[in-house]
């Protein structure tokens, strides 16, 4: 037995979500049409609406409904500091710390040589333009401490330093309240290699 074409099309569309295969897509479609038609309506409208209004902030590249996002438009932030992160979730985590008063740039990804994700996909050109606005003095690299994040940080720092900007990288090592006994040896080895002198 074949499903009606409109249902087939819905199943096919749901499969564009990450981690959703044909079976999960069919289950979701049945649920939306059978059990939760009002929810389905809401989803359709929200999706349509989001596609219409959400774009990237012209300054920091994060998702925004305005040309300049509220964070970039705020006048109580330090414009000389620019923090580079991989994803909007990273930005949210850094904001929660309430220690950083500068501005942000969101790459929306990282250099991933083996997946073919290069400088174009992570908007490096936009970052270079943003960092060279004449006001930014220091760029703080807060990409992840994965091999891809490290590679991304390295190439951004090379590009920015050659243009005369000060570049720093967030520190790594033992976590808050970390006990040496329970820390994994990778972190510990790095903490030893990158130890600093006590002032």
């Amino acid at each position, binding site marked *: 037995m074949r499903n009606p074409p409109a249902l087939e099309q819905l199943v096919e569309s749901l499969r564009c979500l*990450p*981690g959703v295969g044909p079976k999960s897509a069919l289950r979701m479609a049945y649920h939306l049409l059978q059990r939760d038609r009002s929810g389905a309506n809401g989803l359709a409208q929200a999706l349509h609406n989001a596609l219409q209004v959400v774009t990237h902030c012209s300054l920091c590249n994060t998702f925004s409904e305005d040309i300049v996002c509220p964070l970039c438009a705020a006048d109580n932030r330090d414009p000389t500091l620019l923090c580079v992160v991989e994803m909007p979730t990273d930005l949210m985590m850094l904001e929660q710390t309430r220690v950083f008063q500068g501005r942000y740039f969101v790459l929306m990804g990282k*250099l991933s*040589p*083996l*997946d*073919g994700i*290069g*400088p*174009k996909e992570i908007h*490096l*050109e936009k970052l*270079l333009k943003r960092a060279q606005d004449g006001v930014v003095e220091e760029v703080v690299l807060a990409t992840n401490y*994965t*091999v891809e994040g*490290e*590679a991304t940080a*390295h*190439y951004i720092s*090379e*590009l920015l330093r050659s243009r005369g900007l000060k570049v720093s990288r967030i520190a790594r090592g033992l976590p808050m309240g970390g006990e040496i006994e329970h820390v*994994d*040896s*990778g*972190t510990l*080895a*790095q903490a030893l*290699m990158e130890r600093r002198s006590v002032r």
Partner: protein
Amino acid sequence: MAVLHKQDNQPVYVLHTYPFKETSLVVELFSRDFGRVAAVAKGARRPRSAMRGMLQSFQPLLATWSGKAELKTLHSLEWGSGLLLLQGDALMCGFYMNELLLRLLPREDSHDALFAYYGDTLRTLSQNAEHATSLRRFELRMLQEMGYAVPLLNDERDQPIEAERIYEYVAERGASTGVTPLPAANRVQLRGKTLLDMARDDYADSQTQQQSKQLMRMLLAHYLGDKPLHTRQLLIDLQGL
């Protein structure tokens, strides 16, 4: 039920990982005794997964996996001996080696000498030595270990290579003194000295460095086929910024 085909604490390096289902990863491992192995790391993308921080390339690890099919199940990982800190350009060299292995090394074909050499090259790269030379050595060793002939001491008619002579090097055939009617992409013109230097593992001469690079690029392109290497493209794109 006993777990079949379980391999305990095998020395491995992670070559690459891909997201798999909601919270898992498929991990491409390069192991000493089993060559390239693909395994699922279940739940490795969960925030508190023990494996999460360890599934990083270029680190010596000990892996335990099981399974009979091509895709194994990864059970545990431990840090192997010595942590390697690849930084900057060395990282990209590491990605390049990983891409070569992913593209050229067949699954589950043991190459313990190549495994050892890969580890040595990572160590050299992390100590910030001459990166280009390390890569040339690795490329040559890799092709030789995989069984591709790269004759360096004799030409295609089995005459010894003469240092001062100019040769045309063709993949699968070796050096020849005559002119070969092949497109330029399939041959490289070089001095005999370059080949002899490579055979002696001596890359001090700047012309040897340059010509060995051309030679290895041509040979690798021959074995890789049409699809270009991502890492090389990425470096070209970065240069353009």
